[in-house]
């Protein structure tokens, strides 16, 4: 390992980050809670959304994000069609002065699963338009490959439905996505607690994106710290190479030289 006391940089679309945790800003009970959690998480990238201007809005999350010197990654949350997602991404490019976008095109409001057909359409159009596209996708290795082939800068498979806290329901598919991807794989959605974030990293994901697990926990600041530790631990465990699973025991203490005591 290049660095003994820290994690090597996480490279995404030509940029280098020291944190492998991306935090969604949705669901926090207050901007104060959000600020404390973001600081504790060590994150450098946070997602934000666009909605109609609210004349009564109290404080802007963007001001807070900029004050903390974090990168605001806009998403297309709530879009059901490629057309809406592309238009939202263009509005986000104007509002946030970035050509990076977390692309979400969902199929229905019960599962919030991506609509694969619309997602591919939107990704293609946005890549052609010069965007750095980070697509939220199913845990489907073929769809992930198609998104990568279109020129997406990463693939972001879900662990389980957004906000469900069900962890990684198909770790084998995530492993297959990791195995063949040549762009970063970011586990996005479904993480409920720290062990699941560690598991994502142990599967070989490059980073984890989560929101509700921190923002809706009883103590977001402490959970943010837990997630930070879990992601570092999972990354290091993957890197170290775990022992194979075996059915039977294998003594770790030598059987040579056991004294005859009876």
């Amino acid at each position, binding site marked *: 390992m290049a660095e003994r006391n820290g994690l090597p940089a996480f490279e995404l679309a030509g940029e280098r980050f020291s944190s492998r945790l991306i935090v*969604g800003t949705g669901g926090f009970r207050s901007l104060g809670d*959000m600020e404390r959690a973001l600081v504790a998480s060590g994150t450098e990238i946070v997602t934000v959304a*666009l*909605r109609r201007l*609210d004349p009564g809005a109290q404080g*802007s999350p*963007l001001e807070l994000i900029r004050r903390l010197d974090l990168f605001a990654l806009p998403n297309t949350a709530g879009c059901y069609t490629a057309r809406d997602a592309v238009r939202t991404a263009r509005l986000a490019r*104007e509002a*946030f002065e970035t050509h990076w976008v977390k692309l979400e095109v969902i199929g229905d409001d019960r599962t919030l699963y991506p609509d694969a057909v619309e997602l591919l359409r939107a990704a293609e159009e946005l890549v052609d338009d010069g965007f750095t596209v980070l697509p939220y996708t199913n845990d489907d290795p073929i769809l992930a490959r198609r998104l990568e082939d279109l020129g997406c800068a990463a693939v972001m498979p879900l662990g389980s439905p957004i906000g469900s806290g069900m962890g990684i329901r198909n770790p084998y598919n995530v492993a297959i996505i990791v195995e063949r991807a040549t762009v970063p794989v970011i586990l996005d959605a479904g993480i409920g607690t720290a062990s699941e974030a560690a598991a994502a990293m142990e599967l070989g994901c490059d980073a984890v994106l989560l929101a509700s697990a921190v923002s809706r926990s009883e103590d977001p600041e402490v959970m943010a710290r837990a997630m930070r530790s879990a992601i570092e631990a999972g990354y290091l465990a993957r890197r170290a190479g775990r022992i194979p699973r075996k059915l039977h025991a294998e003594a770790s203490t030598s059987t040579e030289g056991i004294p005859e005591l009876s």
Partner: protein
Amino acid sequence: MIVAVNGEPRELDPEATVAEAVAIAGPVPPSGIAVAVDGEVVPRARWERTKLSDGQSVEVVAAVQGG
């Protein structure tokens, strides 16, 4: 003329520009805001000189917590 501003029909001067529609939508934050007219982005630098026409739809969006 009638223009929809964030979904609400509003009576505007026939010579009104995007800037006037934005002012109706609410206090404009210094950053993190964008405007689309009939779905197409109008960059901030062009709000003052982009004229609206009857029946158009103006969406004024800003950053919120999400994702």
